[in-house]
């Protein structure tokens, strides 16, 4: 009897082992690399990957988190060695760099999802008759406004124009509240961009080809003058804030509740929302060129399949999964971003309503540094020269704008 029982157990174990071996032999391991999906920025991936694996039991996704700054170091050697990940996250600049070098597969412009992409996004990401990236998001950049502070001072809506910003600064005059965080790098760029570009203004490409000069441009001259207005009206102390780190100190200042406004990206909505008692909204950038504020959209990352992917079919399924609205919306909701597809549902939180309203009214500009209309060297020059401008507002606008023209000329 005992022998029979042992025989049964051995048979069951052997069968289970065989089944597991067969199953594992059939399971495809999909190597995915992304700079989202870690604990700090889960981006809905745990939920989405579980769903994908449930729908595709033969595919086991192995997601490797690689910080964006490390992608430049870790992935090119793999691409060149012919052992790339099966799917990798890319942004517009990597799409161009790796796509031009022939390391990304063409995902096909005849696909259904490509047909549904917004034209503005298509025009940025398509490379000739190829498309190497399935974009995941378009993310907003605008003005974080502490509504708790504003309401205390009788202002019920976030400022959308220069005059309204000045009114906020006036209302906060004499209090211990800092009206605005205007660090020399990114926040200053957002302000100058939102006030130097107009929806019906010159095409951004005209500047980057040297056809139009920044130094002679009325809009950009007016934009720099608007910064002087902010300073004159006591919105911020330029010498104090010029060197403020926009990626750490500036964010902490806003989170502390001691500052009323901060130009930054919507990717901060998540971390600001976790701060207890911080009553804020995400509004479009106040602008002299729009009554409803200027929404500045940045084309975010997407998925690409490397040329030498060992699992191209499973990779294609993975990408197809993210093109479905019910799946993509999970990612967008976690990110605080908009869909790159037409007629997609808006999953942005209510606190971004005014930003959404500006977009709906077409008061929207695709950030030219993300569309690659403006080069990375020009971006660096903007950041540095605007810091210099804040430190010496008496200097003529031409001193700053000429630096941008020189950089464009150098790039050419």
């Amino acid at each position, binding site marked *: 009897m005992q022998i029979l029982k042992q025989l049964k157990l051995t048979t069951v174990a052997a069968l289970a082992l065989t089944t597991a071996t067969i199953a594992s032999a059939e399971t495809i391991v999909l190597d995915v690399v992304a700079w989202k999906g870690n604990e700090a920025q889960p981006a809905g991936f745990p939920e989405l990957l579980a769903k994908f694996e449930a729908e595709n039991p033969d595919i086991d996704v192995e997601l490797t988190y690689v910080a964006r700054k490390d992608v430049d170091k870790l992935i090119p050697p793999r691409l060149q060695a012919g052992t790339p990940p099966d799917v990798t996250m890319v942004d517009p600049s990597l799409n161009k760099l790796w796509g031009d070098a022939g390391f990304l597969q063409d995902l096909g412009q005849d696909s259904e999802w490509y047909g549904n992409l917004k034209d503005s996004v298509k025009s940025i990401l398509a490379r000739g008759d190829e498309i190497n990236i399935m974009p995941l998001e378009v993310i907003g950049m605008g003005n974080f406004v502490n509504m708790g502070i504003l309401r205390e001072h009788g202002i019920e809506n976030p400022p959308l124009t220069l005059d309204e910003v000045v009114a906020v600064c006036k209302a906060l005059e004499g209090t211990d509240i800092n009206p605005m965080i205007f660090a020399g790098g990114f926040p200053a760029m957002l302000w100058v961009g939102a006030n130097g570009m107009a929806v019906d203004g010159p095409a951004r490409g005209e500047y980057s080809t040297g056809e139009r000069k920044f130094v002679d441009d009325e809009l950009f001259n007016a934009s720099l003058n608007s910064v002087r207005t902010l300073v004159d009206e006591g919105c911020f102390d330029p010498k104090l804030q*010029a060197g403020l780190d926009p990626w750490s100190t500036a964010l902490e*200042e806003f989170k502390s509740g001691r500052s009323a406004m901060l130009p930054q990206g919507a990717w901060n909505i998540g971390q600001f929302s976790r701060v207890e008692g911080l009553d804020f909204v995400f509004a479009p950038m106040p602008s002299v060129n729009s009554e409803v504020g200027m929404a500045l959209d940045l084309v975010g990352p997407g998925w690409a399949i490397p040329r030498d992917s060992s699992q191209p079919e499973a990779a294609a399924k993975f990408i197809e999964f993210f093109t479905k609205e019910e799946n993509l919306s999970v990612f967008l909701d976690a990110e605080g971003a908009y869909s790159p597809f037409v007629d997609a549902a808006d999953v942005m939180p209510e606190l971004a309503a005014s930003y959404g309203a500006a977009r709906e009214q077409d008061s929207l500009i695709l950030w030219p540094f993300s569309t690659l209309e403006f080069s*990375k060297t020009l971006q660096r020059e903007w950041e540095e*020269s605007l810091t210099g401008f804040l*430190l010496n507002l008496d200097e003529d606008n031409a001193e700053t704008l000429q630096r941008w023209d020189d950089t464009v000329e*150098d790039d050419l």
Partner: protein
Amino acid sequence: MRAKNSLYLFTVPALIVLAVFFVYPIYLTFDMSLTNFKGIGEAKDVGWRNYERIFTRSRYVDAVKITLIYTVLVVVLQNISALFFAAILHRMPLIRNFSRAALYTPAMMSFVVIGYVWQFLYSPINGGINVALRDLGLESFALNWLGDPNLALFAVAFVQIWMFTGFTAAIYLAGFAGLPSELEEAAILEGASSWQRFRYIEIPLLRPSITVAVMLTTIGTLRTFELPFILTRGGPDGATRVLSIEIIDNLFGQYKFGFASALSIVMLVLVLTVAFIQNKVLRDAEKVT
């Protein structure tokens, strides 16, 4: 003769390691510096264009100047403060070991941690330093430490000096430990003051330690990257943009691998030249004493 030749054979492994891990990478970097390589794909030969660009744009010449100024500041002040602490601790054997460990602690910490801590301390709005100064009634001394281009380089240099004074002091303490005690005892018997002993006995005898400490500090500081990057990212408006920040920016910010390689070669030549001159001067000074 045969024995002499076989002695040379023993250097072969070391020479192979040097050739494979030092000389060959430098050759590759130089080779890449003559191209427009973007880090991936084909590299196109551009001749000396990258070097021409470096020496005809004020931006890069300025980066070299800032690197040199920063190095002089750090090397001089760090060595003076380290020598000061080492001399004090040499005279206080009871607290020497504890103090040496305490001084050395910042050098053992991560650059990132130290960089971010000091960034918040230096913050102009509610930073620890300015808040403390205001609380002490020294409002006029509350400055924009990292935001003022005239001040930022000094502020960054201060953090580096604070971080590595202990490391340099340890070198000097080792030098002090090797001083012949009879000389010092004789000086004490002759009635030499503490300052006189330091100036006329210890300093001359510490020349070899000074050479080592100054050389190590100089080479380390010329190549410095972490603190200026974390604290200011080269700003405000390029005031702390040392050569290494420029290299990293071109490498991973702009994907100009060829150009960044040219900058690296310029930096290598700079470090070698400074180190060579410094070594010559310091060794000559050792011989004089």
